[in-house]
Each structure stands twice: as C-alpha cells, then as structure tokens.
C-alpha cells in the first residue's frame, strides 16, 4: 500500500454561497473521483516554506460537474473569523490559483447507491457539505431508499444550496431548523435542536434508518446522544466532527 500523495488542484470557479461561505470548484489532474461523504486535505504553502493543512468535505461526488477526462471537485469553506486557513480560501484564493490536495479520504462516512436502507442526514451549519454530495449521488441513483435531511442553521441567510435542497424535484427531503433567526411566517421560533425536535423531524427508530450526523463537534455529540435516547442503535449512526466546541 502506498500513501496517496499530494495533487495540484487549480481553482476553476468560485462563488459565495452566504456572507461567510464560498463554493470552490477545482480541476484536479488524475483525480480518481470520490464517493459522497468523503473529504480531502488541503495544503497551503507560504513563500518561505511554511505549510498549513486542513480537511474539507467534498460537496461533489464522482467527477463533480466534470468528467473522467476533466475531473472536478467542489468544496464549500465557511470562514472562521480568527482562522488561519479558512479566511484565505474564502476571501483570497483566486480563480487560476493552485493548492495541493490529498484524497479522497475516509471510507466510513460515505453513502453509496448500494445502500438500501432509508437514510437520515442531520447537519449543523457547514456540516451540510458532505450531505450535498450525498443528495447529488442519491439523485443520480435510481430506486434508492428515501433520504431525509434535517439541516440546522443559524438563520435563513446562512443556508448553503437552498434552491438545490428545497427544489420540488430534489430527491432528498429537507427539513430546515433555525437556531438564531427564522424566516417570516415561520411556524417555529429560533432555538437549538432539542430531543423533541429530533423526535418530530427525523425518521423513527422503527424505520431502522442509517443516520449520518455532521457539524461542529459539540453539535455532533449532542445530536448523536439524543438519537440513541430515541432508540437508534449505536451501529446505525455515523458521525463526522468538523472541530470547534
């Protein structure tokens, strides 16, 4: 077994998704494609050789919007105001610039069309990124079991891919939950996800769903514990922690 090395990725397109987050599409020569849910490491090098590495989930599956000949991958980076790497990727990296990428990484937090069980995805903030890839893979897979997404976010302005996730033709069924500010006429008030919310808004244990939880570490811990209390088995829950508290 050889270590997968670093590949060059050239920023092909970029667009802001929210005031703090930016979608970045890279073309990567020899990119082997990826499964939905995997991530890459990005390495940045300063002129004096100093390097920083961070992990980012892939919002794309397969070869992204590209092809086997011209593979692409998509990331979404949310800016942490005091961060070292994310402000650079969100505010500074320009189309045509090159970064180093390693991956695809992770073979556990993945959804493939071969999975036949119903799927419940639960995202906190930018934790929705790997689920966008799963929703895209799901849309391309005929006859796959139902996929639901519960997306917890601060306010309506913080939504990534609202149109894609809430389109009537979307193959994933998305429920939105707001923790700080809700849209006009929204039936619920803003607040953190509670066990009651999870009981109401997610597939019940009796449906034996496969559950994926992704977001800041604290969010993942709280939600995973609540799902176990709702009767789901440990083995049915897969988690990805982005860091932070």
């Amino acid at each position, binding site marked *: 077994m050889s*270590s997968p090395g670093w590949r060059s990725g050239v920023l092909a397109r970029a667009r802001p998704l929210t005031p703090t987050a930016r979608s970045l599409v890279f073309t990567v020569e020899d990119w082997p494609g990826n499964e939905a849910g995997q991530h890459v490491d990005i390495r940045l090098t300063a002129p004096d050789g100093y390097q920083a590495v961070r992990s980012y989930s892939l919002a794309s599956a397969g070869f992204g919007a590209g092809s086997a000949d011209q593979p692409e991958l998509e990331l979404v980076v949310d800016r942490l105001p005091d961060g070292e790497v994310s402000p*650079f990727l969100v505010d500074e990296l320009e189309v045509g610039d090159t970064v180093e990428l390693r991956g695809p990484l992770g073979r556990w937090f993945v959804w493939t069309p071969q999975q036949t069980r119903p799927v419940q995805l639960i995202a906190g903030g930018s934790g929705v990124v790997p689920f966008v890839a799963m929703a895209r893979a799901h849309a391309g897979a005929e006859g796959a079991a139902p996929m639901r997404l519960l997306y917890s976010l601060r306010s309506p302005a913080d939504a990534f891919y609202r149109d894609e996730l809430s389109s009537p033709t979307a193959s994933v069924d998305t429920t939105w939950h707001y923790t700080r500010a809700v849209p006009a006429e929204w039936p619920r008030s803003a607040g953190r996800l509670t066990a009651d919310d999870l009981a109401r808004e997610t597939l019940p244990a009796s449906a034996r769903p496969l559950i994926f939880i992704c977001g800041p570490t604290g969010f993942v811990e709280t939600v995973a514990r609540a799902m*176990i209390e709702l009767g789901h088995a440990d083995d049915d829950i897969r*988690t990805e922690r982005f860091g932070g508290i």
Partner: protein
Amino acid sequence: MAVFGGRRREENPDLPPGQHLTDGFPVLSAGPTPRIDEEDWAFVIQTETGVTHRWSWAELLALPSEDITVDIHCVTSWSKLGTGWRGVSLDTLFADVETSLEFVMVHSYGGYTTNLPLEEILDGKAWVVYEFDGESLDPEHGGPARLLVPHLYFWKSAKWVRGIVMQDDDEPGFWEENGYHLHGDPWREERYA
C-alpha cells in the same frame, strides 16, 4: 495570484511534520460516544490458547499505576504537547500473559477496533489510562478508560477500551480498514494507506 501568509507559528522540534498545536482537545470518533458504567466495565486480554485474563474496574484501579506526561498527535493534524495521564502500563497487564503471537487487535465498547504489533505496546510504550489532567476521563475522550499509545497517531489510542485479542497477522482494525495507515507513525507521516 493570492499568496498564503499563514500564521507564523514557532518552529517546534516536538511537532511531527504536518501537525499544528492545539490548546483544546478535539474529538474524533466514528460514531456516538458510548457511556459505560464502571460497575459494568471490564478489561480482558485473550490469547491463542483461549485463556482470558480479566480485570474489573476495581481490579484495574488496584494495580500499580503511573503518571505519564506525553505529546499526542492526531491524524487530523492537531498535536497537544505535555498531556498528563494516569493509568496502568500494558507491561503490568501482560505480566502473566503467555503468547507466541506478535500482533494484537484492540477492542472497544461501541465496536471500534484498532490493530497494533505487540512490541509497540510493551516496554513502557502503552497504558490503559483512566485519568486526564488529574480528573477522571470524560466519556468524550474515552472514559472510563482508554488505551494510550502516544508514539503513534492518536486513533491507535482506542477510546472506551475493553480488551485485547492476540492475532496471527497485522489484520486491520476499524480506521485501518477505512483508509488509514496500518501502522501510523506521526514522524513518518503514516496517515493514510
């Protein structure tokens, strides 16, 4: 072209390549955090002859313990220097274990596994620890007890440890089957297979 400045951190000879320092204690695990009562807890070592050595929680605490101060390195690229632990050396636990096999599979509550060569956990290289920073170990960080193998990436330091089974070959454990390196030496950057 955008030029990455980076936040110049001090050159630190204790940091393996590609690692950065953290003051926090991030959590990385594949699933939810299992909660295990100390009364239900036990640690076993099982050999090829089927012999099982078993310690209850009280028996573990009664064994000679050591204070360990070590640097830890997570594969997701954070390192924490000078962390303080308390626990029992695997040399103590293996004192009466007879085996001719050279590899182990470590098992955890919650189903996690990780593989190691036996020689990498003996001779003062690994412990079953139950205190961090003078406090009992939080479930998030592997409590009631976890393995501590500080010279390898931290996924080898299995949280919620429940036992060790001797094995013939270096069969991969959980993360090792899911793309991580079979061995995991941070100084050689053995991150991914």
